[in-house]
């Protein structure tokens, strides 16, 4: 069995790349492979905006990532600077920036690009979307 790191660069909804990333991650886990972490970079951080509210008959990608975490304990990590620039903040960043709202919470986590780099070191394969 192999270990992957999945890099998601495409936005939720605005790009089909992020949905494909989810399907790839799911297929890899179901085949018994391990995912070191899913790393959200560039517009990919928009996948972790928990205020994403598609209509009830539409696919909810943010929820899908959350269920992947619940089922397989996959780490879902944002690049914090990419996220802040795009208005995705956890309670912590909201507090630091004296903002009264936030839109990212567990199981999504804020991390640095270092976590992408160490993930690349640790994984057998990087797949970007």
């Amino acid at each position, binding site marked *: 069995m192999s270990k992957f790191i999945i890099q998601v660069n495409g936005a939720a909804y605005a790009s*089909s790349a992020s949905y*494909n990333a989810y399907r790839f991650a*799911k*297929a890899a886990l179901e085949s018994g*492979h391990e995912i070191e972490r899913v790393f959200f970079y560039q517009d990919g951080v928009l996948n972790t905006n928990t205020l994403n509210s598609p209509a009830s008959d539409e696919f909810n990608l943010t929820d899908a990532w959350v269920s992947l975490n619940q089922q397989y304990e996959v780490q879902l990590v944002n690049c914090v600077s990419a996220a802040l620039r795009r208005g995705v903040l956890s309670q912590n960043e909201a507090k630091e920036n004296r903002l009264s709202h936030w839109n990212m919470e567990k199981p999504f986590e804020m991390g640095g690009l270092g976590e992408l780099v160490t993930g690349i070191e640790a994984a057998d394969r990087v797949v970007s979307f």
Partner: protein
Amino acid sequence: MNLHHIQTSAKQDNALACCIKYMDKQDSVLLSGNGVNSLLLSQWRERLADIRVMLLKDDVEARGLSKRFKDYPLIDYDTFVKESLTHDKVITW
């Protein structure tokens, strides 16, 4: 041997052109998302003629293009995962 992954239409983005220019001709190409549409155009079919090309099945079927692409291998996500491991790496353009 690398697996080159193209997610965008060749009409909209030059990812495919860029990939073909710099790839080793022994490498493989996987078209996904709007990337599958490029093969509707004879120009791109010709440029990819001597290269091992795969298409992501759900992306083809979702766009109503299965019949048009019956000569190409349509792969599911499990096969995508396998191909990503049998190649040395995946380069997403």
